[in-house]
């Protein structure tokens, strides 16, 4: 670069200097920008420098410059969570004090409890009962009006707290159906007969009325103790209702026969100890609201 001063030509119309380079004969004017523009630029530069000093800005290999203000988005989030918790506190305190009926009578509280319950359900229960709580084969549907152990608040709470056939809770709900076929308690024919009878309980006309009639006797001898007369179910024993349209392991003859021959048993963990009482309360309230609450 030459050190001598370059002379620029001046455009006679605008009074601006003309840049010495020309592109295909087209020159460029060196019209200066307005002062406020230049000053705004300067202020922006200074602002950026100020920002680097004040806030986290430059990364280096093992970390980053923290800035003198000590700002951190992580701390911000923690603060916001704490604020949200604090905002929930009055509702939570009220929830802890009131019983279920009182919560249900307060629309605002029930909305709060249901929202909390829904979140907890998604985290803890949806894996087995489904995110819509409609269950699956072997996992009870919580939306319908059929309950193995009962669908009122207290019973639901008991079930959630202590689980079903849970291995680590003394107070867990226990029920065990004998393997009638596998253990040779009933013969194959008896199993088929009792299946025909059980299916007739829910109103379907049996394919073989004679078998169903024979099955009635087998049922009376072996099943009534848990499933009740005519299969009305026995909640104290966890004996499922058999005279309705709802089947935990399927309602076709094959599925029912499989269950009589070698029954499967679901396990529900005990949630007391894993979830705090307030969380359980919200869960119970939510499940009760799904449509089958008693």
């Amino acid at each position, binding site marked *: 670069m030459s050190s001598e*001063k*370059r*002379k*620029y*030509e*001046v455009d*006679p*119309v605008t*009074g601006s*200097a003309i840049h010495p380079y020309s592109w295909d004969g087209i020159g460029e004017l*060196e*019209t*200066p*920008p*307005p*002062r*406020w*523009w*230049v*000053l705004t630029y300067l202020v922006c530069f200074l602002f950026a420098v100020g920002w680097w000093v004040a806030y986290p800005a430059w990364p280096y290999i093992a970390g980053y410059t923290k800035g003198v203000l000590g700002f951190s988005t992580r701390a911000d989030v923690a603060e916001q969570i704490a604020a949200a918790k604090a905002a929930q506190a009055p509702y939570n305190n009220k929830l802890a004090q009131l019983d279920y009926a009182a919560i*249900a009578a307060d*629309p605002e509280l*029930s*909305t709060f409890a249901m929202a909390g319950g829904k979140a907890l359900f998604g985290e803890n229960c949806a894996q087995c009962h*489904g*995110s*819509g709580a*409609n269950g699956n084969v072997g996992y009870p*549907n919580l*939306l*319908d*009006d*059929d309950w193995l152990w009962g669908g009122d608040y207290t019973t639901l709470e008991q079930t959630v707290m202590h689980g079903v056939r849970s291995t680590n809770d003394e107070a867990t709900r226990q029920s065990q159906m004998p393997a009638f076929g596998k253990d040779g308690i009933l013969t194959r024919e008896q199993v088929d007969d009792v299946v025909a009878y059980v299916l007739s309980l829910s*109103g379907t006309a049996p394919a073989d009325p004679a078998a169903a009639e024979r099955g009635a006797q087998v049922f009376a001898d072996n099943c009534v103790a848990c499933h009740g007369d005519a299969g009305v179910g026995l909640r104290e024993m966890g004996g499922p*209702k058999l005279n*309705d*349209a*709802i089947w935990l392991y399927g309602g076709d003859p094959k599925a029912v026969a499989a269950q009589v021959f070698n029954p499967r048993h679901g396990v529900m963990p005990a949630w007391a100890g894993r979830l705090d009482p307030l969380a359980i309360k919200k869960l119970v309230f939510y499940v009760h*609201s799904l*449509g089958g609450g008693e």
Partner: protein
Amino acid sequence: MSMTMNNRTPTTIDEADIPVWSHKPKTFPKKVKGPIRNLKWAVMAVLLAIYWGVPWFRFDRGPFAPDQAILIDLPGRKAYFLWFEIWPQEVYIVTGLLIVAAIGLFFVTAMLGRVWCGYACPQTVWTDLFMLVERWIEGDRAQRMKLDRAPFSMKKLGKRTAKFAAWAFIGMMTGGAWILYFNDAPTVVPELFTGEAGTAVYATVAFLTFSTFLMAGIARENVCTFMCPYARFQSAMFDQDTMVVSYHPARGEKRGKHKAGESWDGRGHCIDCRQCVDVCPTGIDIRDGLQMSCISCGLCVDACNSIMDKVGLPHGLISYDTERNIELKACGQKPKWNLLRLRTIGYGVVFALAGLGVLYALMARQPMDASVLADRNPLFVRLSNGDLRNGYTLKLLNKTPELHAVEIAAVGLTGAEVTVLGHETEAVPTVELAPDAVAAIRVFVRLPEADWKGSPLDFDFVVTDHGRNLTVSVPTRFEGPAK
């Protein structure tokens, strides 16, 4: 672009002498008197009175809603405008109003040019107010120029401090009034002084103080010339018949100094006194013709007319006129007014249609609204006795500041039984709607197995408010297993 300037401009310049920023001369608008100035004072007084006064008007809406006539309740997500209450989902009404306002502006611009800029734009109104204060403190144009050139002194410091303090005060009042539109005015004003108002309130006041100071005190005409988009596209609405402030060169040229008693023969009526330039708030010379920087304030009209009075010539060397008339007058013909033309009729029609649309939207607005969300997971539930049940979340909007009770029914679904969560025992579920709130209720519809034919059934949820004789129905469907 006069010849003299070209002659003075050197033909070369050293690289080092090219300025970093342009040295545009500052404007020191001179005081002017006249009918247009008076009209502008009146408009300014009315507009400022509206701005500062409106939030104080009360309007009784009962115990559950604010009693401020005009209020935008941001936390409550609602806007109150006299009888109307606008919910977020009705923002289209606001959009419609903005469209009406824009078309109205286009219409006025096509007719009268930039009258908005010259009279009603907040940038102009506040700049005018700031200039008035400036004139009180620092004097008129000549004194201000002198003060500007003067070296630093206690007197200069005193005047500048007084001026900036006064501007800051007006800025604060401006910001302070802005927040009144978003808060209950009588509550928030004392809170402002006791430190109880929210951070957002203080931040808004601070920001608006600063921006008012900057825009009306420092930036002024530069906002109109460089920042305002409307200034840039207004030429699209202009035509030959648009009223603009214009100098009549045919009458004014050839300009030149004039001594009392001299003849006007063989010369123009412009005496080159530069009064029109001195009073111009944007610092331009209207004699150069229509230009983008002109905000059509008409102050140069007042200035020139008073000069014409002095030299004993008729008014109107500078006047509001159309381009067509300037030409016609130049040829000695009669001016022609062409108000009804495709452009103005077009804008007028669109304006009327948009206005009617907004009016209709406001009139047809229901004080109650409902929407339904059918459960998708699962679509249906089989109950013990074989019946089918569908679940729905019904959102009920009560857009009035009163409590209302509504009945929920399913219409068009024979055999169905409706229950509302929390109202299971009621034969016809009746739900209370809190004032100005959205209620989300869970509704179950149960259909006997015999009534299910295997394909989805369309039906309506009908929400009835017997008290007000209001019904809203929302269509939805009932799902079940394929048969």
